[in-house]
């Protein structure tokens, strides 16, 4: 096999082909693959970030819920206490009012009793005088026996 131009033409072809392949195939393809690799890595990192954020949010949610539960219990407690107070107050006021009313009624009844007693006493005195008149068969001079009458009336 003698050395011929074919050998060198094929060598030059190979060299040119390497340059062209590097320019149009290897270069763009490795670029696009590197970009894709980066994008996938970024995506994974973002997913990791999101997962972390979600965890944090969950923790925060738990905290807020606990706080809210505590606050609700507190409010409930307060409300109960307040309700008890109101009931107690109402009960006290009702008792007070009842006592007042009963006292007033008692006073009214007392005064009525006194008045009736007075009236009764006067009636009795008159009746006694009338009885005495009958007994003595003589009209007792009212003016003469005023003192007697008073005395009877007073003793009744």
């Amino acid at each position: 096999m003698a050395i011929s131009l074919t050998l060198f033409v094929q060598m030059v072809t190979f060299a040119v082909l390497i340059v062209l392949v590097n320019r149009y195939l290897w270069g763009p393809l490795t670029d696009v693959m590197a970009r894709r690799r980066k994008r996938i890595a970024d995506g994974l990192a973002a997913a990791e970030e999101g997962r972390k954020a979600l965890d944090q949010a969950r923790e925060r949610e738990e905290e807020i819920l606990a706080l809210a539960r505590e606050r609700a219990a507190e409010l409930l407690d307060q409300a109960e206490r307040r309700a008890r107070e109101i009931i107690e107050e109402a009960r006290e006021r009702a008792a007070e009012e009842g006592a007042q009313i009963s006292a007033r009624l008692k006073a009214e009844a007392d005064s009525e009793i006194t008045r009736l007693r007075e009236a009764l006493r006067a009636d009795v005195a008159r009746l006694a005088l009338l009885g005495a008149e009958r007994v003595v068969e003589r009209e007792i001079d009212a003016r003469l026996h005023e003192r007697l009458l008073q005395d009877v009336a007073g003793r009744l």
Partner: protein
Amino acid sequence: MSNHAVSFMESHLKNLTLGHGFWSVHADSIGIGWALGAAIVLTGWFLGRRLEEGVPHGIQNVLEALLEFVDDQVKGIFPATDPLLGPLAFTAFLWILLMNAMDLLPVDLLPDVARLFGIHHFRSTPTADPYTTLGLALSVFVVTIYYHIRSKGVFGYLKTFFVHPFGPYLFPINFVMTVVEEIAKPLSLGLRLFGNMFAGELVFLLIALLPWWFAWAPGVLWAAFHLLVITLQAFIFMILTIMYVAMAAAEEGDAH
């Protein structure tokens, strides 16, 4: 063998040659090599306008898988990242793969087409032509020399001829052995590819000599087997290219 068979074989094993002596040119090997090279570059050029950064489809997917495969081999063998070695190995693999695959065309297809244009000898497999394979191997050899000089300097490179493998006191033997070794590398690289493809072509030609009603059976079998050889030889050429370059780029002493 009958006269017909001999002339059939002879005519199919003769390149379309233009010119004489040193200035002779195998137009068929070069032309098909250029056509396949252009196919690779044009594919890349058309693909480059609509590369997808998302999920790759179709030919982009195939080329990305091949590129990654080649790149993995390069990274596995070559210690540092290198802007030349990747494209070199990738180009060698793709181009040789396509040129080898020309062997799968029916042996008479392209010669018959050529005959329509008044061309009497045409070989369709450029890698069955030793000029192509040795040209490739010589290119790799040149690249290895560049890496040798880059890693050791001119003097350091020349020194390796005298101190390996037996140390400086046996330098004449070292020189002869290293020269043989260095020459054997590209020669074996080129001749291995040539031998495999030439043998494949030869068997296809022999099968084509069988009667047509029988030829298809061994033809299918040999094509199936040859499919393996085509891929394997392209792969071996690529791997050895990377190995030789890596050995050349290694610091003195690491290479052996």
